[in-house]
């Protein structure tokens, strides 16, 4: 690229106040299929978008990224059309760019702090990251970096979600013998069983898993740790010296309202697991059944609710409602998912809250009684608290109800490990580098923080990998281990 060209590009980039839009399937079409919604940038679009970045010296965007990707550097490489270099920069700190580019809540993280967002839209950092990762995938097998020579230490990673996978990859690079144990028959955690194909194609998860296999990570599926082995047995009989627990937030919360056990009422976990992991959306080829009503209501306002609603549409529901007790601005879901849901025809019923589910004589859902809400004083989280409006009850006719109000920590492993301290909600207690109350046992991700994000779980996996390295091969000794009350 000539200097002249660079100048022109820079000028043009500065003038563009909006992100280059990403081509996607038309709403009417995609609302009935499970293929990925956005097609991703072409190389041309990516370069054009990349030139919107002004390469800030202090790069505020980086502070917004939990794994501190060198954002200006990777975007710079795209400007110069050095796509491989761009991937290399990203991969220095983020092992799963194809995933993060798609599912990170960018508007709350990197893009929130981008200076271009002060006037107009921020640089589409997520889309560019996705582009770089997808470009690499198109080139064939990913480059497998040289790992350090085996150091003789054996580490177990429990739970194969994004946190566990990140931790496993980092440790393998450092020369550890790493074994990942997963309760399900497949890798990925929520990336596999929760987030639907149309948002995160499963071949991306397969590709990342394959990459880790090439790094020498051993995967063991169908292993419910706690039941099949206790940590103590793994230490004594299998010779594991350190552990990373990344078992996630897999305990569905219900609303505890009348009628919640009627037929046609699902937890989002059940609904999505049937559809995603067990592929119930393809009944001609897979045996696991699922069911969706003509009129389906989803309660909740997060990504889980959006995923459930959009899956229900794709499974054939005529009308899909999202019932949420606050307003649009307060929904915790990613902006893009909310927009996509709305375009696809999901009917948002805001400032309403279900108070009872009504059933017919055969035990199936036939309606949901809701109450209207208004926003009152801000609560502890700073969001205005929704308060019910007395006497505003009404009934919404539905035949399927999906509860997507959140998940707690799955107690199975903590229950089987009494020395492992948990807080009053059941989350494993861990310090800032992931150390738990048992020496040699680290934990991170949703099981520690409560339901959070993919990138935060990956950040925790990364920090714990460093901690484990320090513990087994560095300065940290058993006596340094913190005491937990």
């Amino acid at each position, binding site marked *: 690229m000539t200097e002249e060209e660079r100048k022109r590009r820079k000028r043009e980039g500065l003038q563009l106040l909006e992100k280059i839009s990403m081509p996607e399937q038309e709403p009417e079409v995609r609302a009935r299929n499970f293929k990925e919604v956005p097609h991703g940038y072409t190389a041309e679009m990516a370069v054009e978008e990349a030139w919107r970045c002004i390469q800030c010296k202090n790069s505020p965007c980086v502070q917004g990224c939990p794994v501190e990707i060198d954002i200006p550097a990777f975007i710079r490489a795209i400007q110069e059309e050095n796509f491989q270099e761009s991937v290399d920069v990203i991969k220095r700190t983020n092992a799963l760019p194809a995933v993060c580019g798609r599912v990170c809540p960018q508007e709350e993280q990197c893009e929130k702090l981008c200076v271009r967002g002060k006037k107009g839209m921020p640089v589409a950092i997520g889309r560019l990251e996705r582009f770089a990762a997808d470009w690499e995938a198109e080139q064939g097998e990913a480059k497998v970096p040289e790992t350090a020579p085996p150091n003789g230490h054996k580490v177990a990673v429990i739970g194969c979600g994004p946190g566990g996978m990140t931790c496993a990859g980092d440790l393998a690079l450092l020369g550890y013998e790493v074994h990942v144990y997963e309760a399900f*028959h497949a890798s990925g955690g929520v990336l596999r069983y929760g987030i639907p194909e149309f948002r995160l194609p499963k071949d991306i998860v397969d590709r990342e898993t394959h990459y880790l296999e090439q790094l020498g990570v051993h995967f063991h599926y169908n292993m*419910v740790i706690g039941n099949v082995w206790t940590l103590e047995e793994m230490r004594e009989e299998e010779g594991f010296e350190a552990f990373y627990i990344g078992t996630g937030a897999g305990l*569905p919360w219900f609303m*505890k309202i009348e009628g919640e056990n009627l037929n046609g009422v699902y937890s989002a976990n*059940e609904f999505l697991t049937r559809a995603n992991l067990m592929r119930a959306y393809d*009944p001609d080829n897979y*045996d696991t*059944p699922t069911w969706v009503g003509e009129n389906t209501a989803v309660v909740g306002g997060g990504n889980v609710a959006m995923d459930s609603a959009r899956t229900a549409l794709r499974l054939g529901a005529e009308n899909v409602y999202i019932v949420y007790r606050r307003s649009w601005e307060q929904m915790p879901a990613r902006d893009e998912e909310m927009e996509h849901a709305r375009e696809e025809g999901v009917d948002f019923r805001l400032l309403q809250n279900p108070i009872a589910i009504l059933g017919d004589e*055969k035990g199936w859902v036939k309606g949901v009684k809701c109450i209207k809400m208004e926003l009152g004083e801000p609560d502890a989280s700073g969001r205005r608290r929704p308060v019910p409006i007395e006497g505003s009850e009404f009934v919404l006719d539905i035949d399927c109800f999906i509860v997507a109000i959140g998940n707690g920590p799955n107690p*199975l492993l903590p229950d089987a490990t009494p020395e492992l301290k948990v807080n009053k909600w059941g989350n494993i207690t861990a310090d800032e580098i992931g150390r738990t109350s048992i020496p040699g046992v680290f934990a991170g991700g949703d099981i520690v923080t409560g339901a959070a994000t993919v990138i935060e779980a990956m950040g925790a996996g990364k920090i714990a990998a460093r901690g484990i390295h320090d513990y087994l091969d560095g300065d940290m000794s058993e006596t340094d281990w913190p005491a937990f009350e």
Partner: protein
Amino acid sequence: MFEIVSTEELGPRIKRFEIKAPLVARKIKPGQFIMLRIDDNGERIPLTMVDHDAEAGTVTIIFEEVGKTTIQLGKLKTGDELLDFIGPLGAYHDMTGGEHGRVIGVGGGIGNAPLLPKVSEFHEQGLEVTGIIGARSKEILILEDEIKAACDTLHICTDDGSHGHHGFVSDVLKQLLDESTDYDFVLAIGPPIMMKVCRDLVKPYGVPCYVSLNTIMVDGTGMCGSCRVSVGDEVKFACVDGPEMRGEEIDFEEMMARQRRYVDEEQCALERYLKEVGE
């Protein structure tokens, strides 16, 4: 992959398989279950452990061919392999609490399979075990000899009178309790309706009654809530809080309604499968 090391037909549409699964075999206890998936297109189904051999590394299951997955399973032969075999799942309950006493074990239909390891355990622990087992008719009554070996007294019932007492297991249970209520507990395993009848019957005698719930499951690890049941004011997950539970407060009507959630879809899967295999 998990190899099937032996197969045996116990009755029409009822089979016993021994599966090589050393890690499961080492740990699994009476009352716990496994989930299996035959192949990548299959669903995960729960089956109770009937026997296990830690040394040989095998787990025995017994199943009735009732739908797509169990019929497909029944076609497999010694030497074939299962794709997934997950366990142990469910809670282990030591019902005796180390006390030596008298108990009644009731089994109905395929429920006699999960009953066997329980009564065997009670017997080994030195309890006095009275067994009541039943089935629709003699030819589908399974495990009579094995259960007999674990019981001090065994009563047999068939709905059609082709063997033992002509009538239901609950008739015999009532008789026994009328004679004496000096039992530490009753354990009843079988179809939900049978467990409900037994539970209702036992209640007025003031004897604790345990049951084993066979709700519809997806993961079996407490992650989805498909298996939830109302127990008094609480909601419990059969896969982690159970499957064995105290029966007094279980809402069986709700549970039975929930079992019918997928009848149409299951029927479709079965028809599609039978067409595929030309039956």
